């Protein structure tokens, strides 16, 4: 009896689909993940030990191991630079104004696009706004320099209406304005994508209900659309907060000149000049490490803020 029962049980177990181990089931996922892991190790973690140049008088011929150690000298020199406070201030001012202005325009533009009913027009406008995003800053800077230079396009046009334009790239009081506006020109299309996606997620039933209740377009935007996309707005704002010390190296490098150092020289451009132009690797490493530590703290804060404000776990 007993043996017959066991036999039956065995037969039943055989007939059931085989339960396999975790690894047997999941190895393809790990294999697919492996290249990314190797990339991460090779290009992010492995070079990390090079950060020690911040504490060395680094000489490439001697390498990391034989270059003399100088303790905190590089940091001391950096903080003693008369231009250092200016570098930090410019970085924060430029990054913050770019962020706020771009988000404002991106939200406005996506709201406007959302109201367009002709889908052909909507898609055309959207594509046109994307185009500048795909040009590199080197190309963009060439175009901008041509347009904004004295005797350039804008100046020739304004001369017709007898208006003397300031040289936007050569006047320190106008330079931030120039940076922000060209940044918006380049990135508007791209930053709209997330907002447009957020808009499509809003339940159309809400609009219908609002319309039945007598809300006009403006009211519907105010009471349905904006609250509907607020989570996305807050989320993006918080995530950007971590980038506050990155004010757009490529853009500024291609557009600035000594006259606008006063408002346009940022940490990254200084690091570039110190490290790659004048070969002071230790100094450049020290300032970059300083930037990295603050940036890391900001990322942690923004992560906290984002989950606190949106009630979701992000990252």
């Amino acid at each position: 009896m007993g043996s017959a029962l066991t036999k039956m049980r065995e037969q039943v177990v055989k007939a059931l689909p085989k339960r396999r181990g975790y690894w047997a089931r999941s190895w393809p996922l790990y294999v697919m993940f492996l290249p990314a892991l190797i990339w991460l190790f090779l290009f992010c973690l492995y070079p990390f030990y090079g950060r020690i140049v911040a504490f060395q008088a680094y000489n490439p011929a001697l390498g990391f191991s034989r270059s003399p150690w100088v303790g905190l000298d590089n940091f001391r020199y950096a903080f003693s630079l008369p231009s250092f406070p200016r570098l930090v201030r410019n970085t924060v001012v430029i990054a913050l104004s770019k962020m706020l202005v771009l988000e404002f325009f991106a939200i406005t533009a996506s709201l406007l696009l959302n109201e367009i009913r002709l889908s052909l027009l909507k898609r055309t406008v959207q594509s046109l706004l994307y185009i500048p995003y795909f040009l590199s800053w080197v190309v963009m800077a060439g175009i901008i320099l041509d347009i904004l230079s004295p005797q350039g396009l804008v100046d020739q046009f304004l001369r017709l209406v007898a208006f003397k334009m300031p040289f936007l790239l050569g006047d320190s009081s106008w330079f931030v304005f120039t940076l922000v506006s060209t940044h918006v020109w380049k990135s508007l299309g791209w930053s709209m994508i997330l907002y447009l996606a957020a808009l499509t997620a809003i339940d159309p039933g809400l609009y219908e209900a609002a319309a039945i209740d007598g809300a006009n377009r403006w009211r519907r935007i105010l009471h349905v659309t904006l609250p509907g996309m607020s989570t996305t707005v807050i989320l993006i704002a918080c995530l950007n907060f971590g980038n506050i010390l990155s004010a757009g190296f490529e853009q500024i490098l291609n557009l600035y000149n000594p006259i606008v150092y006063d408002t346009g020289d940022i940490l990254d451009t200084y690091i570039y000049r110190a490290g790659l132009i004048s070969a002071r690797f230790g100094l450049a490493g020290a300032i970059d490490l300083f930037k990295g530590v603050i940036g890391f703290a900001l990322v942690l804060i923004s992560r906290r803020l984002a989950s606190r404000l949106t009630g979701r776990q992000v990252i």
Partner: protein
Amino acid sequence: MFGQHRISRRECLKLGAVAAWGLFAAACSPQVSEETAKPSGTTEEVASGSEAAPADTEGKTLTAEELLGPGSLPGSPEHPKGFRTVLPALPSGMPVSPSVVITAGRPACGATTFAEGEDIENNPFTRMVRDALGIEWKAAFTHSDPADAEAKFNLALASGTLPDVCTGMPTTVFEQALAADALEDVTDTWESAASERWLKEPADREGSTAWAFLRVNGRKYGMPVCQHLAENEAIMWIRQDWLDQLDLAVPQTLEEVRETALAFKGADLGQGAPGTTIGLLASNLFTTWFGSLDPVFGAFGVIPEFWLLYDDSLEYASTRPEMRDALSLLRDWYADGVIESDFFTLTQVDAAKYVSGNRCGLMLSEYYCARWGLPESLQNDPDAKWVYAEIPEGVAGRNKAWKNPWLETPVTFRKGFEHADKVIQQTNWLMELQSDPSRRWHGWEGPGWSYTIENDTYMKTTMLDHKWAYGHMVGASGCNMDPLQQYNIFAWQEENWSDLPEQEWDAYQRAYHTDPTGTEKLYRGASMFAVESSEKYALHNRFVAPPTPTMVERKADLLDLERETLFSIITGDKPLEEFDSFVETHEQMGGGRIAEEVNDWWATRM
């Protein structure tokens, strides 16, 4: 039934992963084999070619001409109006047998071109040196600009793969390599191998200038390299046809320069859109090439960034009181529109466009623009008539920035390199070939090579000026060993050829007399004028040495401050009084300590 045959999600993932790895492997492997296949093919060719040469030399001594054979001889004796290049006698012990292979890291700009099927390791120059001297040049890498050179030499240093010969090694890399004991001391080799006439005399002509960046503790760690004398020093270039139209004379003083510039601008004589003619050309660098302002500063007795001698001690000219006066004048000029409102954003290439586009008729630029800028200007406006003249005069007379013809980026040798003597001997031979004008060195005839002969006239092709294509040193500017080489050749040609009757002209002499491009005579004249003008008016930067310790640490930041202040004062962005606080800040930020170090060096210099 169907369900069993459907590919499950997991199988799909597996397939995907396998495919991805396959692609990954495929992408890596064939490329490697292709790359390794190519160079090995060329080395075989080269090797078989070089083995043939010494075999012929067995028993009898062949001259360089016989070793080269008709295919690779410079000159064009076969042509009815051709000329013969007379090669110098071979150095003793050459051709080296078996030939030696030497690797080099050397400059090659993007514009460098080769004839069909040739490249940097296989061209008339490499074949000549291989067959006549038994030296095979391999390019370990090429670099296109100072930043590129710095990156590549640094990489080679860090990985311990420094090439045998390093051409154009930046000073920073030189210092680092020396600290790591990676460079060969060639003091004794130079002493025994370098030719007295062709190398030692020119290198020692200006005292220790040539060795300033190579000699450490009395030992030489490389070979100096120079440009033509005064090649980058400013002379005044002006449109004579514009002067004639406005009934003006060539300006002599700063005030006259101002008036002429405003007259050109006001009359709008240029070719661009209405209202786009500019006055005096200026660019984002004060002391170089197109649109230099150094003669304007010089008229006040100072040159930005120069160390000038005052009563037996050196002072930094950018912080001298005369600088304030110069800035005050330039500030007025800027406000009046004498110089363009965006001059500080113009690179050399941008500035050159004003010349080639004929929007500018007055500039203080180097003589070399007769070959770069002016030809384009003439092409766009055949009536353009450029003339050169003396730089303008001011309260301190006429002065301009002297440019050290000896490069700060010399030729160095890897530690342990055994053939430095061969490189120096090759240089002897090449210098004799090129510096002695009666040898008639004008390159190789052929499409894609140095020149072609059309209508019995020598027509230069692209390669002659692309000196780097030839090898590490072939006498053109920037890889020369005698700053006066070009001047001497031009002077010799003038003396020997000017009375030559037309029926005797060979192809080169026809080009010399008829000037088919329209700018070559201008180039010759301007280059000789610049050398003579340099002797009279060039203010020498007295500090010719590697940077002092404080300079290494602080000079870049001080220069940032200086450029920002000087430009801002000129544009009116900051008041003139800002100069006084700049002088103070400069002193505090390390300028004072640098001045002490520079004067210590001056007191004990060799």
